[in-house]
């Protein structure tokens, strides 16, 4: 599989404060990668440098494609209230002929199940529906990479589950490459093919973990799957959730691999 995104020794400082320090990773075409880390650990800086919103202090970001799209956490501010839902989805497509714009918007709205709401204003919809509009807008743009910044952090738990499943379905159907930035460990395990664990100040990559779960996932069975539970605790320990003293990561990872293989074999 070819690499869609290559990040090499990416670092960024705001004045004297170093937010992220020397991150290197790749995202392969068609993959869904989750970047997980505590709040304020530089996840947003990482996303902003990848999306080109800020120029990094050092390092390179190489996108193997012409453009990317971003779904922001704050859907209310990200959508334009003076445009209809359809107008919002067509917004990044203004350079295309009208007919193609229309058909692409209609198609993307159908993918997220909002065809009926095309003529409404975003503010007439519920929060979850608004975020679906934002996702449709990003998909209609046909990005080489879809970046998502805490995309489901502002909706209630029920809606969040629905949106997570919607994202998994849409990206499976359309082979979209996705990079999700989240602070939610469960979400990163549930969504990801791979998890990049970010920690420390400046933020460094402490682990790059494959998710040993099948592509088809389910909110009830997947979340109780042994592999899910094991990986979730592993990430939690890597992020030192609960304030236990920091572990020697390498030593701990070796021990963890042993314990994992034990559980699997038993």
């Amino acid at each position, binding site marked *: 599989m070819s690499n869609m995104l290559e990040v090499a020794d990416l670092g960024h400082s705001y004045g004297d404060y170093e937010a992220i320090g020397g991150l290197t990773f790749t995202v392969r075409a068609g993959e869904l990668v989750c970047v997980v880390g505590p709040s304020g650990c530089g996840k947003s800086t990482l996303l902003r440098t990848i999306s*080109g*919103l800020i120029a990094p202090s050092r390092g390179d970001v190489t996108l193997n494609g012409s453009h*990317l799209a*971003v779904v*922001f956490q704050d859907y209310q501010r*990200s959508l*334009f209230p*003076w445009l209809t839902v359809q107008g919002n989805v067509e917004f990044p497509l203004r350079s295309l002929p009208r007919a193609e714009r229309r058909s692409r918007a209609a198609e993307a709205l159908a993918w997220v199940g909002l065809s009926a709401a095309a003529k409404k204003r975003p503010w007439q919809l*519920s929060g979850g529906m608004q975020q679906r509009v934002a996702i449709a807008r990003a998909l209609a743009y046909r990005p080489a990479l879809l970046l998502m910044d805490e995309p489901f952090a502002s909706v209630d738990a029920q809606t969040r589950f629905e949106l997570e499943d919607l994202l998994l379905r849409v990206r499976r159907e359309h082979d979209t490459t996705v990079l999700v930035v989240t602070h939610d460990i469960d979400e990163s395990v549930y969504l990801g093919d791979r998890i990049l664990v970010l920690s420390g100040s400046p933020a460094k990559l402490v682990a790059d973990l494959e998710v040993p779960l099948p592509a088809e996932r389910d909110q009830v069975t997947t979340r109780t799957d042994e592999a899910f539970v094991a990986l979730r605790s592993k990430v939690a320990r890597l992020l030192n959730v609960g304030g236990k003293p920091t572990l020697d990561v390498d030593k701990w990872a070796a021990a963890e691999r042993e314990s994992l293989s034990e559980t699997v074999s038993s």
Partner: protein
Amino acid sequence: MNKFLQRWTVFAGLVVFWQLAGMAADDPFFPPPSDIVSAAWEWWVLEPQNVTEHILPSIGRLLSGWAIASVIGVALGVLLGRSDRAMDYAGPLLVFLRSIPPPALVPVFLLLFRGGTSMQLATIIFGVIWPVLLNSVDGARSVDVTKVDTSAVFRIPRHQWVLGVVLPAASPKIFAGLRVSLSLSLVLMVISELVGTDNGIGSQLMQAQREFDYTRMWAGIVLLGVLGYGLNTVLLAVERRALAWQPRSRDEQHA
């Protein structure tokens, strides 16, 4: 209908009171409304050339002055609002110019333009540009960061950024400025016609006053009131259409 009654009862009551008081006082300085209406009838309906030679040119100057000021004000305001550096340079100058009362500049414009329409337009434009300009600056600045980021990520072209994002986002504030400016243009239209011309509502008002024709003077004043009310009503209707996209009330929004 109830609402209509509610809105106009006080107004009608005051007119009736004025009529009765005017008739009782029988004072040439304060004629009753009936006399004012008949003076207006004689002046403008029986002599329609007064409408074409004085009222319409006045309205024309008012509207064109306001329109020119609005275009310049919005364009300049959006530019200054989106550029901190431009605002750093121009800020003090704007505050200084805005502080000059526009009527004080009438003699200057009189010298510069030798009276006539261009002097009147200059007075109106200089006087009414500030509310539009400053509100546009404010509105353009208020585009929130997420919309700026969204537009940057989708790499939308510059004209779409200005016309499709900044202007709509600033439009509620811009309209507030336009309304203040419109009522100001009426004031400045009259002031600019008081000197150096024998044409327009303002000059007719002065002339009636000089000829001790107080009924006509009052007719002119009432005409200005009607004009101001009418213009504001039209602009409000336009605003309501243009800003129909705004979430109207909390209950209409899903949380």
